[in-house]
Structure formats: C-alpha cells, structure tokens
C-alpha cells in the first residue's frame, strides 16, 4: 500500500513537471483519480502572480503545485510557494485578539478588542480631527480589502492619511509611468517575453526575486540563439551568469549610463525619428516647473553624456556603454527593473530615463518591445496602486487633487460632498514621523511589518512602541507575531490568503481570484471582515455617516461590483471582469470593459486596447496597430532631460562603504512567512553580508566571520560572505531576518525621492568592521 502510494506520488510529480514544461496536457488526466481536491488559485508571494493549484484533503491544505493551465506562468512556481501549505499552518499563527495591558499583550474577545480600537479612533477624530488618524496597508491585502479601507478613511472619516507598503517598493515606478505616459502600470505584458531578442535587466535580481520570469527569459535565450541579455547593476547577482553585457555602475550613478546610451543611439542614427515626431515631447524642469524643449535641445543635453564622460561619472567602461546602446536599439528590447531603480532618492528620474530609451527607439507597443516594471508583492499593483490606496490618489487613476475625481468617488461611495480632502495626506515616512511627534494619534496597520521594513527603523519602532504619555494608539492586523505586533496596543489575528476569497492583481495587469479553501485557525478573521466591523462601529460612534459602509457589503463579491463600476470611463475599465469570469478563468488583464472582452496584452495600441475603441479616450480615426498615448498631455509621452544626481548619502571617509539591501531566493521580504518553513529557514539560518573579497582582504575579514555594519543611524551584525557580487566599496545585506543584531533597517536611510516619496533603501553610507 505504502509503495503504491509512493509510486503514485512519483507519477504525479513527474506528470506535473511534464505538464508544466509542455503546455499542460498531462496533469489533468493523471491527477484526476487522486483523492486530493485541487483548487485553482494564485501564489501568495511575489508579483509574478504564478497560477497555482492548492490541494485539500480532509479539510487540510496538504499540497501545492503549479497550474499548468495558467496562460502566462504555465505550471511554473518557485521554492517559496511550495512551502505555503506549511507556512499557512504554522503552529504560531495568531488565533485570538490581544490587548496590551500593563505593557503585556493579553488575550481578549473580538468585541472587547474591536470596541477599544473603534473608541480610540473615534476619540482621536472627535478631539483632533480626521487627520489625526491613519491607515497603513499592504500589497498583500486583497484588492477588496485595500479598496474598503481607502473608502472608509477617505470617504467616510475624511482623511487622506492612507498609505501602504508599496510606497516602499514601487512608488518610483508609478511616478515614472505617470510622468512619462500619463497613467500608471505597464503597457506590455509577459507575452512580450516570447518576442523579445534583447532583455535589459536593471537593478533586478530576477533569478532570485522573480524566478519564474527569469526562467521564461532563460527559456527564450535557450530556444533562440540570437537572444541577448544586458544587465545593469552594481551587484553581480545570479542573473550576471546569463549576461552578454554586464554594466556595473557605482551605486546610484546609473543615470549617466542611461543618458549615454541615448547619446550613442542618436549619434549613430539608431533612433526612430518618425516615432519621436508622432508620439514624444521633451521636457526639462526649470525653476521647479516642467518646461517643453525640442529634440535638438535633448541632443545638446546628451552631449554632456558621451560614453567617455559617462564612464568618468559612473565607472562603467565607455565601450560597454556603446555596446549596450547598440544592442538595445537593435531590439526588440524588453526591459525589466525592480528595486535597484525604484528604491532611490532619484527613483522616478531613473524610471524616466529607462522609458526614454524605449521612446527614442520607438520600442513600445510592439511585440517584444516594452518597459516593464516587476513587482515584489502579490497585490501591490491591483490592490494598492489601482485602488488608489495611497495618500495622493483615488481609485483607478484618479487624483485627490482633482475636484472632478473627488466628486466622482464621493458620488459612487455615497459620501457627503466635500468629505475627501483636496490635499494629499502624509506619505509613509512623513506619516511615521508624525507618529513619532505624537501628531498621528491612532494608526491601523494591516498585513505588513513596518517594525522591520521601514528604513531607519529604530526611530519608527520607538514611534510605534515606546511607552510615553500621549503615545499614539497602534492596532496591527496580522496572521503571525512580527516585529510590529510586538509594538502594538491591540493585535488582531488575520486569516491568510487560502482562508478567504479575493482578488490579487499582479505585474502584468492580470486580476486573479484566490478562493477560500480552508477555515482560518482559531478566531482569526479576514481583514475584510475586520474592516467591515471597524467601519460599523465608527458609524455607531458618529464619526462616519450611518450606513456609509455598514450593511452595504457582506462579502468581497459585493464590493467587487462597486469596484468594477468605479473603473467605468477610466483607463483601467475592468467592468467586464466579473466574479464569475474570475472563478472560471485564469485571471484577466485589464482593461476589459465587457464580459466577452478577452483582456488586453498591449495598452495604447489600436486594435488591442479597448480603451481606444469606446469611452472618453476612444479614437476611431486610428488604424489597427497604431499607438496613442491617450492619457498623456497632447497624447505625447515625455522624454525627460533629468540631471544625473547621485544618491542622498554617498560614502565618505567616515562611512566609506555603500550598503545595499535586498532579498534571497528562499526568503520573502521580512521573512514573516518564509522563516516559518524550517526548510527555507535552514537554507539561510542567519543574516549574511556579501563583501567583495578585495575589500575583505583589505579589512582582514574572513569568510564566515562576524561583521559589524554601522551607519549614522544604527548598527547591525551579520556573517561575512566573501563573493565578487557587490562591486568594490559596496556591501549587500538581505533584510529578511528579524532578530535584533541582524535588523539591517536600523542602518538604512529614510531619505526619500521628492517625487515618489519612496525611500532610498538601496544606497546609504556605512562603515564595516570585524565584529
């Protein structure tokens, strides 16, 4: 019996692999007799959004495998997701609400905890006004949850103090898309991978952070011999292994490289004058205001970035810049980037310069040609960016600054006219600074771990948790104990993704449903339920109009109807993505305005993007395949002339190293989930610090010895790992470990991009010593 079962498991494993690598025909037939019930879902981790099948047996979540029928990820998954059954069922899941009494968190009833939270918020709003409270959400909450919280705080309470952790990871990508094209989110999709011949990977450790995308790039490279990879990164991460051209600039000095590539492209006549004439405009910021300039001005500006000059600024050899520029122009080129570009004090500018290269070569809106920002969380795109759950925006491309947009949302939400303030709320760093000054009096933190993930963490940990008279009230909703729950006044136990039904929207604009397959442990509730309860209690206390939320929505299905309607007449129009479709299909890429629309692979292209066919942006004078940047001023995308400013804290004599932070394959962000799978934890049992062997030799640091990393803000300790990954003068430390000596965000800097407000996690000055 045992061996039969073993053989069966083996056959199933082989079949799953064959299915994943051959388009999916086999898995269904072989697995049908298995006693496991397989349910279609989506991975809980990164923004790749892999389709997964969750296996349930006897009420237990026992297995996970890639969904071979998934149209874009085709059955592939990475090691992290395979451990989700164990992670979800970790023994230390939070199961009952807790209230801090005399400094200690004590079990409480839901009613007692919720009443306390609602009273503290109501009291603060009544005494100090709506802007004395704040919400800090997450790219891991379901879209319906983020939308509901946004609706409650902006349209119910009347504050724009709504933020979320995507501010820490993708705000610069948003800023880049919006300032260049007029609207957020990538115009291309994963389909472009199959058509590209050149991949430009910038500031992205794709192999470890988006392994399934990396595999598709690898597969393309193996299948077609003419596919080339350019990597631009000061650290040689595992993707350097497949780089045909490796550009490693001094950290923070890649802007001159982008400009120089543009210089070479134009000088060698590799640009696309027709595309530029039809679709582009050129701008520079003078005296704080954007000013239109000509193509000739741009060419003149680029004279300051000849490859030789750029080499002096960036450290990248001139001939490599030339080679990269020629390859890029030859194309078709698909660019991918993540935190290396975004987590910078000039993140928006870096994003703009990436777009510049695509615009001047006309490599947008055609197969294999697109600038594509990858995302780190499963629902930063669909959940936070699209639902407008940040302090300056409203759902589906609307802005709090525009009266028309505020009115539209107030009408749809049934809010009193004038409730949504016209001024943006506090961005993440300013929100936590206001908390430190005790100006924010009550904060709700949902599905995220700022006690570990904020830069300059010590200051904000104190803000959240240090006892003092008038200390703000902190409520944290999470599934696990974290470095943030330990600071909270109330902790509410949350259901995990497999214990609730909702939508995740991943990097390529695909909205996908994950269904509830098991009950949540103990008394845990979904964030959606908690928010409904919270809203109803605030209504009862008179700080939110009665009936504004209470009684309107029972399930996430109900609120989805309103969300679809909110997308009407916007560039996001997904009215056709019904709940029924989400249950039956493997997600749909917006825009998809009607139930029979198949979803959109390429935006801004007539014949592909339905927004050009009907509605406020329709243009029926265009021919199929023609491009129109319908959301940009005068329908022209902007090529920006940005100065090549470096990081906010460059190394100096006292702090001579650059610290960069990031992730490893097995661990995800602050490790709240992945550290709960013993197997994953064991692969990296302790925090490490990558050091270039030349630097290590100079400092007498041996592989495996302890090092001390100190900045102007704090200190952390890690185990030295000598590797020619980081360039000389740079070290790399993952931020996944929560234990105190390893908490690297005590060291990082909270300086942020003035446009996107995204902090510069990637670069700060430190000193490195033997511990």
């Amino acid at each position: 019996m045992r061996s039969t079962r073993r053989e069966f498991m083996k056959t199933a494993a082989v079949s799953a692999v064959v299915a994943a690598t051959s388009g999916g025909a086999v898995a269904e037939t072989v697995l049908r007799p298995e006693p496991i019930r397989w349910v279609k879902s989506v991975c809980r981790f990164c923004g790749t959004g892999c389709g997964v099948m969750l296996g349930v047996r006897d009420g237990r979540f026992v297995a996970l495998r890639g969904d071979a029928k998934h149209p874009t990820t085709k059955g592939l998954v990475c090691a992290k997701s395979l451990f989700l059954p164990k992670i979800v069922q970790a023994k230390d899941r939070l199961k009952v609400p807790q209230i801090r009494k005399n400094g200690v968190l004590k079990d409480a009833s839901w009613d007692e905890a919720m009443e306390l939270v609602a009273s503290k918020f109501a009291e603060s709003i009544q005494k100090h006004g709506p802007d004395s409270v704040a919400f800090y959400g997450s790219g891991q909450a379901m879209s319906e949850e983020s939308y509901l919280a946004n609706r409650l705080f902006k349209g119910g309470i009347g504050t724009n103090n709504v933020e979320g952790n995507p501010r820490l990871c993708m705000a610069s990508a948003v800023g880049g898309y919006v300032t260049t094209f007029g609207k957020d989110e990538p115009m291309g999709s994963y389909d472009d991978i199959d058509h590209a011949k050149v991949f430009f990977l910038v500031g992205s450790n794709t192999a470890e952070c988006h392994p399934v995308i990396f595999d598709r790039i690898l597969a393309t490279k193996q299948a077609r011999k003419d596919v080339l990879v350019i990597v631009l990164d000061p650290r040689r991460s595992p993707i350097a292994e497949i780089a045909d051209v490796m550009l490693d600039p001094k950290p923070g000095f890649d802007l001159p490289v982008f400009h120089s590539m543009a210089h070479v492209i134009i000088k060698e006549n590799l640009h696309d004058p027709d595309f530029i004439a039809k679709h582009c405009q050129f701008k520079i910021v003078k005296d704080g205001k954007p000013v239109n300039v000509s193509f000739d001005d741009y060419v003149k500006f680029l004279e300051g970035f000849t490859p030789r000059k750029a080499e002096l600024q960036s450290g990248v050899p001139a001939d490599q810049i030339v080679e990269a520029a020629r390859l890029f122009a030859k194309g078709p080129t698909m660019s991918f980037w993540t935190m290396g570009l975004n987590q910078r004090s000039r993140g928006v500018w870096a994003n703009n310069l990436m777009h510049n290269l695509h615009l001047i070569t006309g490599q947008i809106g055609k197969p294999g040609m697109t600038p594509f920002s990858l995302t780190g969380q499963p629902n930063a795109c669909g959940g936070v960016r699209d639902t407008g759950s940040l302090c300056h925006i409203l759902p589906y491309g609307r802005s709090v600054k525009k009266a028309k947009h505020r009115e539209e949302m107030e009408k749809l939400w049934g809010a009193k006219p004038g409730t949504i303030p016209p001024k943006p709320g506090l961005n993440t760093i300013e929100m936590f600074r206001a908390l430190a000054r005790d100006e924010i009096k009550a904060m709700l933190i949902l599905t995220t771990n700022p006690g570990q993930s904020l830069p300059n963490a010590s200051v904000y940990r104190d803000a959240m948790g240090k006892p003092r008279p008038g200390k703000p009230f902190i409520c944290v909703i999470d599934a696990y104990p974290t470095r943030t729950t330990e600071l909270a006044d109330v902790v509410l136990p949350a259901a995990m993704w497999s214990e609730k039904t909702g939508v995740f929207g991943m990097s390529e604009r695909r909205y996908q449903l994950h269904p509830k397959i098991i009950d949540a442990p103990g008394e845990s509730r979904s964030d959606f339920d908690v928010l409904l309860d919270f809203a109803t209690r605030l209504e009862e206390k008179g700080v939110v109009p009665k009936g504004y939320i209470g009684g309107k929505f029972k399930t996430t299905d109900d609120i989805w109807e309103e969300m679809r309607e909110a997308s009407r007449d916007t560039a996001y129009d997904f009215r056709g993505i019904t709940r029924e479709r989400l249950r039956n299909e493997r997600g749909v890429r917006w825009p998809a305005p009607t139930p029979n629309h198949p979803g959109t692979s390429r935006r801004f292209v007539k014949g592909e993007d339905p927004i050009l066919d009907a509605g406020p942006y329709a243009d029926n004078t265009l021919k199929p395949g023609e491009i129109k940047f319908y959301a940009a001023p005068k329908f022209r995308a902007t090529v920006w002339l940005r100065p090549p400013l470096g990081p906010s804290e460059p190394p100096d004599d006292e702090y001579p190293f650059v610290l960069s932070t990031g992730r490893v394959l097995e661990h995800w962000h602050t490790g709240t989930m992945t550290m709960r799978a013993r197997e994953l934890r064991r692969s990296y049992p302790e925090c490490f610090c990558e050091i270039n062997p030349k630097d290590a030799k100079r400092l007498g640091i041996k592989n495996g010895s302890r090092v001390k990393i100190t900045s102007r803000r704090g200190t952390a300790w890690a185990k030295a790992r000598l590797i020619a990954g980081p360039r000389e003068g740079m070290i790399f430390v993952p931020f996944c470990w929560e234990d105190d000596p390893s908490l690297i965000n005590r060291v990082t800097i909270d300086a942020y991009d003035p446009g996107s407000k995204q902090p510069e996690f990637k670069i700060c000055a430190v000193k490195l010593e033997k511990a």
Partner: protein
Amino acid sequence: MVGAYVRAKTADLGGTRRRAEEIEGLETFDLEREGMFGVVVEGPSIDAVHDVIEGRLTRLEGVLGVFPVSLEIDDPSVPTGAVKGTPGGVS
C-alpha cells in the same frame, strides 16, 4: 517528494544530468525540451529533499536553475486549518 525541472547549459546537458543522477534520492527523466531535464527528489523528510535541491542540485556545475513544480507533504503532523471556523465567515 518534489518534482522539478532543471535548466542546464545546453552544451553540457548530458554531463550535467549524469552528475545530477549521482545524487542520492534523485532520479532524472527526459523532458524533450532543449536544455532541460526533469527530476524527482525523494527523502525521509522535507528537510532532506530541500537539502538535495538547494544544497546539491542547484550548485552542480552546468545547472542554471532548478524549478520545482510540485510538492507533496505526506506529513500527518501538519495540523488542519479548522479549529473554530471564521466568525461571520463572509469572505
């Protein structure tokens, strides 16, 4: 038990596969895909399987990436999710 596929440097696919087969608890199979072969890794515990994949297979010369596709946990110690149910269970 984990089913995975391995992407290897095409020029040395045969050699990489032979080296992989020397790892105890690991079997390979054809995938009829350029630069790829499949593996099934078995072990007494998930720890052991993980060690084989992360500690040995991914580090083999010629291996570009290992992509697990399925994992079966045959481990009765994994608790059931349900204890009390979700109050209000609305979503």
